[in-house]
């Protein structure tokens, strides 16, 4: 529903007086606990964050803990001040706008459901406070629903008289099992006047809405009426499959159900941007997988910009349209999951994305004319694919010592390969993970099972890889992928 632009966003946590004193004491000693930049002003949690999030995009911020991803999200939500830079939501500068006026919703890791309210009240709460954008189509839908409800009420009045609540209560509590007698009063029943009145009013409203739609208007902003709120909550609850829990309090729900309610409370008012702060990390593994698919399904149903924070790279890969990999407050790489997986821009991204993580070993990149070769110390030599050679040529890379990276699924058995001894062989079901001791390195290899499990442990295998799947990372910091030398996201930051 909205575009979010972050321009040079910086977050600095200023020192408290105590911390400053400590720092004065600690000066001289070279112990550095974090890699976060420490400047005169304070600890920099987020550094020069530049990103444009497209309308309706699902963006995932991923990184190890303490990398600034949650801080970034909280800045977008308005829960943290932005130290420097500009934040635009839907074209409006939002640096100094209150969270409630940003038209965002957020799902918290701890769910943050109001414990004293029922699920229904929890989901209704945001609707009761602020004015909402109400599309005319939605209002027509609601009025039709309301008319159905009214028709049912009318039928009730026309049908046979029901026993009063008091008799029902008495029979339920004191005379269990006995049949409730039909009421003796048999005067003809009348339908109360308010039903007809409301139906009339609803018809008029529907006509007004249709007129407005004809005139090309789409929505209006107003506070929702009680009935409309009820309809909206019921509809959202149905979408999330929590209709049966509406009368319960959060205490009586399981983790997964609470998570659904939290998501329901966030999406019930159709926010421009939906922020999710590690929403699945409090769930157990099985539920997490389920909820992940639920979120993917949900995403297809509602058109909202999603910003999702996680430290789990599997969630990042499966959910995101685009992934932002962060570390120590810096963006490491932005790209589609495929891009990030196939072409990691530096050694950190290569090891962070993908399980089991990429194998790294010392090697050499050798140039012979227009061809490049990856060479291992043992003499194993592979020609790089044409695509890679072109990129390396464009960057004018000369022969040099590098760290070579190959993903476990790309390592294969080869007759002339590097010999190694299998130390551990893990059966994972469809495939087997082998830990192979090659020289000093522990190399992980994924071998497909093809229906039978072979126990490799203790055996000597010869390993090799394809020239299309090997990455060369520079030895000096920041350890970039040599193919993408000039596409540097943080050049500016490093110069400072």
């Amino acid at each position: 529903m909205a575009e979010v632009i972050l321009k040079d966003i910086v977050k600095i946590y200023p020192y408290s007086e105590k911390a400053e004193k400590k720092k004065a004491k600690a000066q001289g000693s070279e112990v550095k606990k974090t890699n976060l930049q420490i400047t005169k002003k304070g600890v920099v949690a987020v550094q020069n964050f530049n990103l444009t999030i497209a309308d309706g995009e699902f963006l995932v911020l991923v990184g190890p803990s303490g990398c600034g991803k949650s801080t970034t999200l909280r800045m977008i939500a308005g829960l943290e001040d932005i130290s420097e830079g500009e934040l635009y939501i839907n074209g409006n500068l939002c640096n100094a706008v209150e969270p409630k006026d940003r038209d965002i919703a957020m799902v918290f890791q701890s769910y943050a459901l109001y414990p004293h309210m029922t699920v229904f009240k929890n989901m209704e709460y945001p609707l009761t406070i602020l004015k909402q954008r109400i599309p005319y189509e939605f209002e027509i839908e609601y009025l039709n629903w309301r008319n159905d409800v009214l028709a049912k009420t009318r039928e009730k009045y026309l049908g046979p008289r029901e026993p009063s609540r008091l008799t029902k209560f008495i029979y339920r509590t004191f005379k269990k099992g006995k049949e409730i007698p039909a009421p003796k009063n048999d005067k003809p029943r009348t339908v109360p006047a308010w039903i007809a009145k409301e139906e009339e009013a609803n018809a008029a409203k529907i006509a007004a809405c249709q007129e407005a739609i004809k005139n090309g208007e789409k929505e209006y902003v107003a506070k929702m009426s009680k009935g409309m709120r009820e309809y909206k909550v019921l509809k959202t609850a149905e979408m999330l499959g929590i209709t049966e829990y509406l009368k319960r309090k959060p205490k009586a729900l399981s983790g997964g159900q609470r998570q659904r309610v939290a998501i329901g409370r966030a999406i019930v008012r159709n926010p421009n941007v939906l922020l999710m702060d590690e929403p699945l990390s409090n769930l157990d593994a099985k539920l997490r997988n389920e909820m992940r698919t639920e979120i993917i399904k949900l995403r297809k149903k509602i058109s909202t910009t999603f910003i999702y924070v996680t430290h789990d790279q599997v969630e990042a890969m499966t959910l995101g349209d685009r992934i932002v990999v962060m570390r120590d407050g810096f963006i490491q790489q932005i790209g589609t999951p495929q891009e990030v997986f196939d072409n990691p821009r530096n050694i950190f991204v290569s090891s962070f994305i993908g399980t089991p993580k990429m194998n790294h070993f010392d090697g050499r990149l050798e140039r012979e004319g227009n061809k490049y070769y990856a060479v291992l110390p043992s003499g194993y030599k592979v020609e790089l694919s044409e695509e890679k050679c072109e990129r390396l040529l464009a960057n004018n890379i000369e022969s040099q010592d590098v760290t070579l990276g190959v993903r476990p699924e790309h390592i294969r058995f080869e007759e002339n390969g590097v010999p190694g001894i299998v130390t551990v062989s893990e059966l994972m079901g469809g495939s087997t993970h082998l830990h192979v001791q090659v020289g000093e390195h522990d190399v992980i290899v994924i071998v497909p099972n093809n229906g039978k499990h072979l126990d490799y442990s203790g055996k000597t295998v010869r390993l090799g890889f394809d020239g299309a799947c090997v990455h060369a990372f520079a030895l000096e910091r920041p350890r970039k992928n040599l193919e993408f030398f000039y596409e540097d996201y943080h050049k500016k930051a490093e110069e400072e």
Partner: protein
Amino acid sequence: MENVTKTMEKKDNGNARNSRAKLALILEKILVYAFLIFNVLICFFVFYILIVNSTMSKAELQGVFTGLPSTHFFENLESALFKPETVNILQGTLNSFIVAAFTAILTTYFSALSAYAIHAYRFKGRKFISCFILAIMMIPAQVSSLGFIRLAYQIGATDQLWMLIVPSIAAPSVYFYMLQYLKATLPLDLVEASRIDGSSEFMTFNRVVLPLMKPALAVQGIFSFVASWNNLYIPSLLLKSDDKKTLPVMLATLASQSFSKADAGQIWMVTFLAILPIVVVYLLLSKYIIKGVTSGSVKG
């Protein structure tokens, strides 16, 4: 066979030891319960004397102490409610109730409000303010009352019930309790969620935070109600006219009458009437009191 008999002997030994241990346990329990019952008796003895004495006539009270109830209960009741010349007990009860009820409400609400501010907001001087409020707690009421009475005379607010009510907004000890309770029970995520859901800061407090603090509010409400109900010191300094006096002040007036004038049965009766509402409140709300006192400390 020998083996079998040996094991059986062992078993018997075990059983004997077991039963001895059980006996020790039972004895211990009896001792503990005896001690507790003794304590309860001491506590109830005071009330018993009060009730018994309120059923006695003036003459009986001046006689030998018997410890048995007498038959003058309704006489005393009548004389307590309608006889005293200088004070009107019913008016006093009403005054006390007004002061105590408003005090309870203001104390709990504003203490919760300030505790919430200290807990949920980060602002400069937060620690200083927090310490300052606690420092006020160290000053005894007798010391601060001096200034308070002077202030009351200067603004001409003596002999006014609201002068007893308004200062109760500042209640450091209640504030401290509320702060501890909030620290244990209120995750700040809730506040942030409410903010994002669109509520203003006051709405967040009234609709999300206050309902969560219900047990704490109940406990502190009852405590401050009782404290205000029993308060003699400040009201006796402040209240002059008879129709403004609260119950404890009236009781003091009655008790300080000359010996020949005073009706001891009547005074006992007034005392009995004065503690009655509090006993009722305690009996009705004891569940919440226990819940509130423990929940703040255990949850964490």
